[in-house]
């Protein structure tokens, strides 16, 4: 039930907490898994170096679900986190609420951070793919995951994003410096139009919808036109993302085999036993299921009809977003279906994270920037990170008045 798995002895500078997929030499990095309990990295993640260079201090490591792809951290080897009301919460958002950290930097694998920020009334930015180095983050879904920032305000999130964005030679997918710079300053939102994703919004409950309504009202006041769009192709991102995510995850966690580091079963006579028993004993149930599913998707039999089809679906989603951004500045959608999850709900449906990610998968599969604030999510074209944050910041400030988002306060 710990929020901080590891706490720094002392922190120099503005305190930032890292979620535990970000490797540090000062403290162990566990990935929320028994497999890496106590694992000490030989090197720091690039974002750690960048944060320290910008005057931030690493205050500790926040608990996360095993390899960061679950619903809300419930699969952590170190235990799930709940708030006083008995709802599942992410350790990161609890730390932010308690002002123990100015910001949390993590790896957005499957949207946990965006869901958590929406539910906690915080701000989260998943930046444009390639603008923040992934060097030194434990890889899960290399093609879509991104180092993300959560904070209490959009301004704080932007400060941290500006500190960590930039080219890195150690990451082959890192974009050139001049391009990375774009996420540091807001460009103008020229269309003055926002698309409202119709069926994604319809899939959320009233509390979430009231946040969407509040944003629509705010945007119209601010001179934007908001139009409902047919989002069928964005909805189709989820199944494709689940195939890609599970497959890449299966491959990426195969390095954890009990041979070189991490957990090794004491109960092994042969090398095959060593692999099987180490992984069986150290991996949690959701992870095992996902590995099996991903392995199946990559099999000779399923590769073309499932994996390759998902890659083609990714392109369809990318093209659909590109088409939308020819007309709109951003697509407005929820980040989650409801404002709180109970442990009982999660226990009843162990694959909830593969359903609830319908709201986060579109931006993940397309590598686009997504900003959550005031309980809603804005997805924009590549490099619109700062513009989205600026807009979200204005909305966030407005929505924190007592009137807005009333319903969601009740639920909480």
């Amino acid at each position, binding site marked *: 039930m710990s929020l901080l798995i590891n706490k720094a002895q002392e922190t120099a500078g503005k305190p930032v907490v890292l979620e535990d997929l970000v490797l540090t030499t000062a403290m162990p990095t566990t990935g929320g898994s028994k497999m890496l309990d106590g694992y000490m990295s030989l*090197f720091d993640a690039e974002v750690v170096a960048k944060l320290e260079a910008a005057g931030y201090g690493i205050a500790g490591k926040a608990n996360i679900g095993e390899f960061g792809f679950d619903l809300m951290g419930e699969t952590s080897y170190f235990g799930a986190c709940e708030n006083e009301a008995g709802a599942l919460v992410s350790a990161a958002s609890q730390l932010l609420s308690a002002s123990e950290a100015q910001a949390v930097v993590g790896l957005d694998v499957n949207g946990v951070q965006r869901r958590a920020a929406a539910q906690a009334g915080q701000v989260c930015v998943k930046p444009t793919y390639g603008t923040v180095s992934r060097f030194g*983050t*434990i*890889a899960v879904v290399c*093609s879509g995951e991104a180092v993300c920032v959560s904070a209490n305000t959009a301004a704080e999130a932007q400060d941290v994003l500006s500190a960590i964005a930039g080219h890195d030679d150690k990451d082959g*997918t890192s974009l050139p410096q001049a391009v990375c710079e774009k996420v540091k300053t807001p460009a103008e939102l020229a269309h003055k139009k926002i698309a409202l994703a119709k069926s994604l919004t319809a899939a959320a409950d009233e509390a979430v919808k009231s946040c969407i309504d509040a944003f629509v009202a705010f945007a119209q006041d601010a001179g934007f036109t908001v139009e409902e769009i047919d989002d069928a192709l964005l909805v189709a991102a989820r199944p494709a993302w689940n195939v890609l995510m599970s497959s890449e995850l299966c491959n990426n966690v195969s390095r954890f085999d009990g*041979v*070189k*580091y991490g957990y090794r079963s004491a109960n092994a006579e042969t090398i095959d036993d060593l692999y099987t028993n180490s992984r069986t004993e150290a991996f949690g149930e959701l992870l095992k299921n996902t590995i099996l599913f991903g392995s199946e998707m990559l099999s*000779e039999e399923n590769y073309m009809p499932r994996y390759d089809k998902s890659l083609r679906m990714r392109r369809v989603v990318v093209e659909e977003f590109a088409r939308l951004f020819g007309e709109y500045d951003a697509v407005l959608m929820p980040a989650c279906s409801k404002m709180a999850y109970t442990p009982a709900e999660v226990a009843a449906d162990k694959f909830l994270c593969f359903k609830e990610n319908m709201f986060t998968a579109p931006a993940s599969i397309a590598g686009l920037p997504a900003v959550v604030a005031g309980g809603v999510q804005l997805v924009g074209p590549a490099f619109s990170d700062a513009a989205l944050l600026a807009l979200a910041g204005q909305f966030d400030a407005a929505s924190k008045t007592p009137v807005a988002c009333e319903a969601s306060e009740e639920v909480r």
Partner: protein
Amino acid sequence: MRYETVIGLEVHVELATDSKIFCSCANRSGDEQNSHVCPACCGMPGMLPVTNKRAVDLGMTAGMMLNCHINRTTTFDKKSYYYPDLPGSYQTTQWFSPVAVNGTVRIETENGPKDIRVKQIHMEEDAGKLVHDTLSNTTLVDFNRTSVPLIEIVSQPDLSSADEVVAYLERLRSLLRFAKVSECRMELGTMRCDVNLSIRPEGSDKLGVRTEMKNMNSISAIRRAIAYEVDRHIDAIENGTEELVQETRRWDDEKGMSFAMRNKETAGDYRYFPDPNVMPIVIDDEWYGRIQGTLPPFPEVKKQQLIDQGLTEYDADLLTQSRVLCDCYDAAFAASGLAKECANWIATNCLSILKKNGQTMDDLEIDGDRLGQLVKLVGDGVVSNANAKKILEVMFEEDVDPKAYAEANDMIVSNDTDAVMDVIRGIVAANEKDANDFRGGNEKAINPLFGKCMKELKGNCAPQQLREMLIACIMEG
């Protein structure tokens, strides 16, 4: 019944890059275990691959030397399997779009030339090495070799005998060595070969059951393995000794037998998929042209050029075995115009120094231009042969100008015959006994006198001239 053998080869060649394919560790074999390793090539979490462009250069070069089409967009894929020498539990290789496809390699057979089709050349990373200690019954792993760049050259099943296989391998070796793609040394594992073999009744166009043999580390082992496997197949078909199944077999050269490793049913599904961390490599016209510009002529073309310059077939053959030797010769010849002499200096003096240092011909590092200057100094009678050899030894250690070195170290042949005659007279006078013996008909008696003169002159005299002058002096006296 008469049978024909159908063979296709998969040849792995380690690329001669300075560093590994996805990290900056040195690509060097023979050093202490695990001395060229980093978190990336040890499969530690958090590391990302950064492609070594030089490996791509060499992959393209190999493709061009083997008349392949170069894929202008080439990509890397992940191949998953568990083995302790594979630290990430996946190998990064090229499955969907290899660097080169559809080539040909021409070999000479007893029935004349034959073109062997090359299906594809793909790049990939090597795995580590397991070291088994039978005493303590433990297995240790050496990661120096993980992520060393390889190309795998996959032929079509166009080979029909062990002789053709050997001719094909030797041709590959010659082309790739000449293009400096690899040293291709089977005994060091920088060239490895898997043999896919089946037999069928002569004249049939159907392929028989195919087996793949691994672990042959010499040409002679390959010959033995092919002979054994053909016999085993024929025996199985004619005498029903066993049922042939499509499988991978391991050649045991000591026992002279192959053993089944895994068959189709037990073979793993490698679950290939594009590696999202390695961006597709786009080879533009500039890059393509640059590599094309570095291609050497085919070794046989170069050999003929050397013969036309006046070299013996033997020397031309030797020099074209290594691009390093050949480049050194070209530079030396350009500097001196003395073809035979340059070839001799390389084939005899340079190679013997390399041998003494425990090095191979590819380790020759001396400046060919300066070697040519040295050869010319000897040819012009400015430096004696013996002194030139001493200078050559120095040139192997440090970068010296031969003429300047000869001048600074008193190694210039003296043109002052009077001074030489003075030295000779002095030596003859001091060694009357040897002089008398020579006069008396003992020809060997001149040798100590000659040696003493040469020593006194510090070698700076043409031997033939010294000999003549010495004889004249003795006979005068």
